[in-house]
């Protein structure tokens, strides 16, 4: 049983409300930070902890904070990215819905470290009811003196505002989020300048994921060095994984990043195995935009080592034989799932969500969508598979923001690992309409235990 830091008190009744949260030891980190630490010491503590951004890219949070420009007389902002729209990722929703105060607490401490007097939570528009929960939590914190002017007599002022998005996936990209926050069209900005220099309203801004900010709370409570002891290597601390797909126990799990993927899928403590006693075919380990992995490469790396649920191990082998931990949206596919259809669904999503600003993404995502539609519905040719590969290659890395990459990677990985299934869709077009390709050799080398 791994150690829980964020969801430790999730089961306590009434933890959503300030009184219970405070009784269970909440807001200790605010007291500690504001009364006994300087902002730089808080930043240093986060740096020592090795906390990596939980939104997907895994960039060290302390480093990001230290890049923040601090010109005289210019306000700085902390913006919390709660625009969690990645298919398969729902960890932030769980956190905000059940323990909103841990986020508020994290924001106060982080704002103190960054010198942000006005911090924002940019929340996905579809999370309408969570907005109410957060606003209530903010009000409660304000009533108890943890927000507003001169918090705990430290002279530090902080206000938190909740801003609802309008349903665009692209607004989860940090610069598009800032544009949207400013009230403009949610188009990603061209970098540089980075938000740390010129962010919201042209002011230095740090944009962090909900889980990253919430993780600041245990870091300050226990100290960064203590936090760094959990996990292995550069994957420190705990990570929320939102597991879904063909598993017995879908849900949000907090893991310390030492358990193996096999244990995570098959252990009763976590996912509880594949549902209906079927066999594992493939898995997307970190939200829909990371490369899909077939079962044999998922459980063991190409070198034959056991794959661990952490940043390094999952990305072992690069994209040729590895994937990414990403945002922790763990989607499991059993033997009855069709990879072509699955890839088509994802391509359709990215086509729908492309902002239309830069040409490779605007035109490329629709092309991917149409080609996969053709393959899925039995009109594909072998040439289309090669073309699909070429199109994704032309999108990847050539776009303004990572949405282009996110659209290209799943397609690339699907062709790389499941090309025979694509070819089967071409050669057996009629049959492909009525039955699925099945497991083939993807799981051959694996003994299904537990």
């Amino acid at each position, binding site marked *: 049983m791994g150690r829980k830091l964020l969801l430790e008190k999730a089961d306590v009744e009434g933890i959503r409300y300030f009184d219970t949260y405070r009784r269970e030891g909440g807001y200790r980190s605010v007291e500690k930070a504001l009364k006994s630490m300087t902002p730089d010491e808080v930043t240093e503590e986060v740096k020592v902890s090795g906390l990596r951004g939980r939104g997907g890219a895994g960039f060290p949070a302390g480093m990001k904070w230290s890049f923040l420009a601090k010109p005289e007389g210019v306000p700085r902002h902390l913006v919390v990215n709660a625009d969690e729209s990645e298919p398969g990722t729902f960890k932030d929703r769980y956190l905000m819905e059940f323990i909103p105060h841990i986020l508020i607490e994290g924001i106060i401490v982080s704002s103190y470290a960054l010198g942000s007097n006005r911090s924002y939570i940019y929340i996905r528009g579809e999370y309408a009811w969570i907005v109410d929960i957060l606003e209530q939590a903010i009000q409660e914190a304000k009533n108890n003196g943890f927000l507003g002017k001169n918090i705990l007599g430290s002279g530090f002022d902080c206000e938190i505002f909740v801003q609802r998005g309008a349903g*665009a996936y*692209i607004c989860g990209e940090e610069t598009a989020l800032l544009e949207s926050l400013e009230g403009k*069209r949610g188009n990603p900005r*061209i970098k*540089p300048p980075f938000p740390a220099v010129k962010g919201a309203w042209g002011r230095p801004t740090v944009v962090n994921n909900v889980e990253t900010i919430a993780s600041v709370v245990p870091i300050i409570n226990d100290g960064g060095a203590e936090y760094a002891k959990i996990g292995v290597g550069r994957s420190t601390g705990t990570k929320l994984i939102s597991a879904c797909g063909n598993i017995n126990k879908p849900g949000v799990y907090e893991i310390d990043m030492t358990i193996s993927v096999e244990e995570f899928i098959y252990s009763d403590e976590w996912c509880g195995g594949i549902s209906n006693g079927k066999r594992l075919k493939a898995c997307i380990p970190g939200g829909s935009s990371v490369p899909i992995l077939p079962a044999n490469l998922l459980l063991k790396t190409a070198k034959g080592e056991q794959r661990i649920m952490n940043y390094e191990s999952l990305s072992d082998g690069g994209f040729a034989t590895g994937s990414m931990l990403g945002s922790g949206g763990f989607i499991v596919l059993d033997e009855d799932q069709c990879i072509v259809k699955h890839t088509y669904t994802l391509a359709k999503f990215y*086509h*729908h*969500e*492309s*902002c*239309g*600003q*830069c*040409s*490779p993404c*605007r*035109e*490329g*995502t*629709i*092309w991917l969508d*149409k080609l996969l539609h053709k393959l899925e519905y039995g009109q594909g040719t072998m040439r289309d598979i090669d*073309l699909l590969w*070429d199109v994704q*290659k*032309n*999108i990847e*890395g*050539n*776009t*303004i923001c990572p949405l282009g990459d996110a659209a290209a990677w799943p397609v690339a990985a699907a062709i790389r690992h499941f090309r025979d299934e694509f070819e089967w869709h071409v050669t057996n077009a009629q049959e492909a309409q009525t039955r699925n390709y099945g497991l083939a050799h993807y799981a051959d080398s694996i003994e299904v235990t537990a």
Partner: protein
Amino acid sequence: MSEENKLFKVTIDNITIEVPPGTSILHAARMIGGHVTPPAMCFYTPLKESGGKCRTCLVEVSKGSERDPRPMPKLVASCRTTVMDGMEVKNVTSQRVLDARKGVVEFLLINHPIDCPICDQAGECDLQDLSYGHGNEASRYEFKKRIFVKHDLGKYIQLHMTRCIMCYRCVFTADQVTNKRQHGVLFRGEVSEIATYIEKSLENDFIGNIIDVCPVGALTDKTFRFKNRVWFTKPEDAHRDCPTCCGKVTLWRRGNQVLRVTTRKDQWGEVQSFYGETGWICNECRFEKKDVNDWVIEGLSTIPRYSVKGANKYKALEVPHETVGEVIGRKPKLMMDIHTVSDVNNPSIDLSKIQGPATSDVFNKKQIEDKKEN
């Protein structure tokens, strides 16, 4: 040399040039000129914040700077990346860049109607130049292209969204040149379009400039539509005393008729600056003054533009296979050789040798010379 005036050394395709700090890679490359210059479809120097969207100007930075020699992992948009001291950039010498650019051209063309034969922009179209220079012979896209309805943006401008490549130049122009922007980008992804929110005309003294900045034929001048092909018209620099704008324009004439008035553009197709101010022109100069007597003619435009019309690229790359002979069993009889009749396509004149666009004068002179020789 003092610290502020220090020039940055930048090497583009093995050619080294010294540029002031803050220069973009694209501008440094333009200083060198020639094939080193990456094409730019969305970047427009006089417009702030333009660029970075079309991705045709992608280059590879093989060395970041003298201080930090690491190469940049991704290709960067040269129009929005400033040079660093000691930077090494690869444009045409990098296969990666050429491949990416080919990909981008293909993407730009998949939904473009390629209706050049009926498009007013043909001949001075950036996309045409780009696809001649960097594109494939054929598209691999075999689905239906997206289609938009034509919009009338007032008395003078027509919007042909189908041809648009979403460069955002007109949006920036309306934002920065006129005092109130009434059009913008609606929707997202491949259905995003330039439009007024509720269909209405654009009323502003300077709104005509959005026609000039458009790299394709999406925004067209209604006073010029279908009047003539650009390569038949003769560009001349002219000016008039205009109370609202600088009054320095290019007149596009055929005979004594002024067919079109545009801003004066430099060799990169961008509006020239006069005395530090961008030479935008007002609607009155552009649309109302179509009489030669309104203008003081300064002479032929001398800006060499590397363009489809200038480089004489209008020739078939492949001669189509003639099948008539196989069907009727004999060679078809030539009823009339258009080349002996037409002045314009007369093969005795090499259009690429002519300074500026070809006009009937050129052909008349040639014929007189030919007669003299005979």
